[in-house]
């Protein structure tokens, strides 16, 4: 009995002098794992164009129905993405999101990735429905904010879907863009985004935007 008591009480006593496993969280933040599922980011190409083509595959993949996407057509004068269409509205509801990452797997252009940011709390529902402005990655250095004209885009001569102008997806949210590194395979077929191939705007929203 006494040996058991000695062992038990000795253990707790010795533990008192061991360093605590606690991280002083708000003061010290622990590095998360590289593939951590944090809040989302809508990536850009290095010239500033958005990667999102408004295909809504992420919204379809989402098991929690947390994503809302509406696509719209690019026009020769106002081009937001290298594709035919772009996401004119993009919202993620972080009250519903379960951070499963199926949207990331669904995204055909690697437009949607997840960052390392996990501090997602808010006082209201509105605060936790992130809009496209909040989700878009910051502009790479020297890039021009979209919309670009087709002339500009063609002049750059990038084959976007072959890895030109691709960027490493943003990890840490507020880190400056590292840029440059080509994306590995897995992207869909290259389309010629040269002038004249995009269809004329037909969506009423689009017309309204152009009229403005």
């Amino acid at each position, binding site marked *: 009995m006494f040996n058991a008591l000695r062992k*038990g*009480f000795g*253990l*707790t*006593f010795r*533990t*008192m002098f*061991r*360093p*605590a*496993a*606690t991280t*002083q969280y708000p003061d010290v933040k622990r590095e998360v794992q590289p593939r951590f599922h944090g809040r989302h980011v809508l990536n850009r190409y290095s010239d500033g164009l958005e990667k999102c083509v408004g295909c809504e595959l992420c919204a379809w993949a989402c098991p929690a129905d947390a994503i809302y996407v509406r696509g719209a057509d690019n026009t020769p004068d106002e081009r937001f993405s290298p594709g035919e269409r772009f996401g004119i509205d993009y919202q993620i509801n972080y009250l519903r999101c379960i951070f499963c990452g199926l949207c990331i797997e669904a995204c055909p252009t690697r437009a949607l990735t997840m960052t390392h940011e996990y501090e997602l709390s808010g006082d209201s529902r509105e605060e936790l429905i992130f809009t496209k402005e909040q989700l878009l990655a910051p502009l790479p250095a020297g890039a021009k904010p979209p919309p670009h004209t087709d002339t500009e885009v063609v002049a750059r001569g990038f084959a976007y879907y072959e890895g030109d102008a691709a960027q490493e997806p943003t990890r840490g949210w507020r880190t400056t863009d590292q840029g440059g590194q080509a994306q590995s395979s897995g992207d869909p077929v290259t389309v010629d985004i040269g002038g004249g191939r995009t269809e004329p705007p037909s969506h009423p929203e689009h017309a309204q935007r152009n009229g403005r």
Partner: protein
Amino acid sequence: MDLVDVAITFAVALGAFALWLVGTALLIWGERRVIALMQTRVGPNRLGPFGLLQTVADGAKLFFKEDIAPRNIDRFVYLGAPFVSATVALVTFAVIPYGGTFQVSGREVTLQVWDPNIGMLWILAMSSLGVYGIFLAGWSSGSKYPLLGGVRSSAQLISYELAMGLSLAAVFIYAGTLQASQIVANQQIPLFELGPIAVPAWHVVPMLPAFVIFFLTSVAETQRPPFDLPEAEGELVAGFHTEYSGAKFAMFFLAEFMNVITFSAVMVTLFFGGPSGPLFGPGWLQALLPTVYFIAKVGIFLFVFIWLRGTLPRMRYDRLMDLGWKVLLPLGLFWVLATGFAVVLRTSTDQGTVLRIAGVGAGVALLLYLAAPLLARRPRRDTQPEPEPEPKFPTPSR
């Protein structure tokens, strides 16, 4: 008895009050910190230096919380129970000397609120009264869990009070007095000299079994782990104070932790020489040192209380009762007898007669012990096990 006397009495009472209240706040903080250390955590460390103000913040929060009372309570008793607990906890420490004696304007001041000749009986009486606070709280809450918690705690407290009383009785027989100051004074005579150091005759040396019994029972009386069954959260939500919130809960909480300090102080007083210790230095230091010794000794026991909580899992209820009734109570009885025998033998002039009477007594006891199994009717035990009942579940008809 003039104004100065009254002022001194008030000052001493206030000193005790401050010591115990501050001690309680520090104990709650210290318990959380020490337990955290034992679990490789940090504990409260954000409010004030080392998180010292955390208890203050928690207390303030509790007192400003909404006062919720369930509908089917016995209102009078429900509201009164926390006061019983808190008042009892607050008056218990009155008889404990917490410092030395010094001169103030030509008067002798002893840092002890009250020194009646019934002394330590006051402690026993008040700790028994504490049961009422707990039991009335459990009964008046009008719901099942508090009732069960209340029943458990009163059963536990009453069982362990017996053994505690016996262990104290042994000390009283040995010391020949109930007065706290006398008990402390008795422990200051040197037991033996070790060169220049005089080892004081603390009661823990001759009364070691009584100390062990008292320590175990005081853990049970204060309902600390591993004997915290009245509020076993896995079984009874929070036990007797499940239906209490806000300031009323705070009173129970305060009483609980204050009792821990009081029982540690009783242990120090009875077994570890109270506030005594080597005195040196100038006059003011000599006046202060006993209080420092007292706080240090109590602090060690408080640490042991916390250490127990950090190490031991909660006991099963039947084992708790077994320990109280089958181990501590007989041990206490035996020790009271042994102490009484020793004291009588020491003081009597005719030691031969005492020894002869004791021998006859021991012989009779031995005979009874051997004969008890033959005399007691054994409970009938069926050797045949009950036949398995036929399965009653519906079977498909053929």
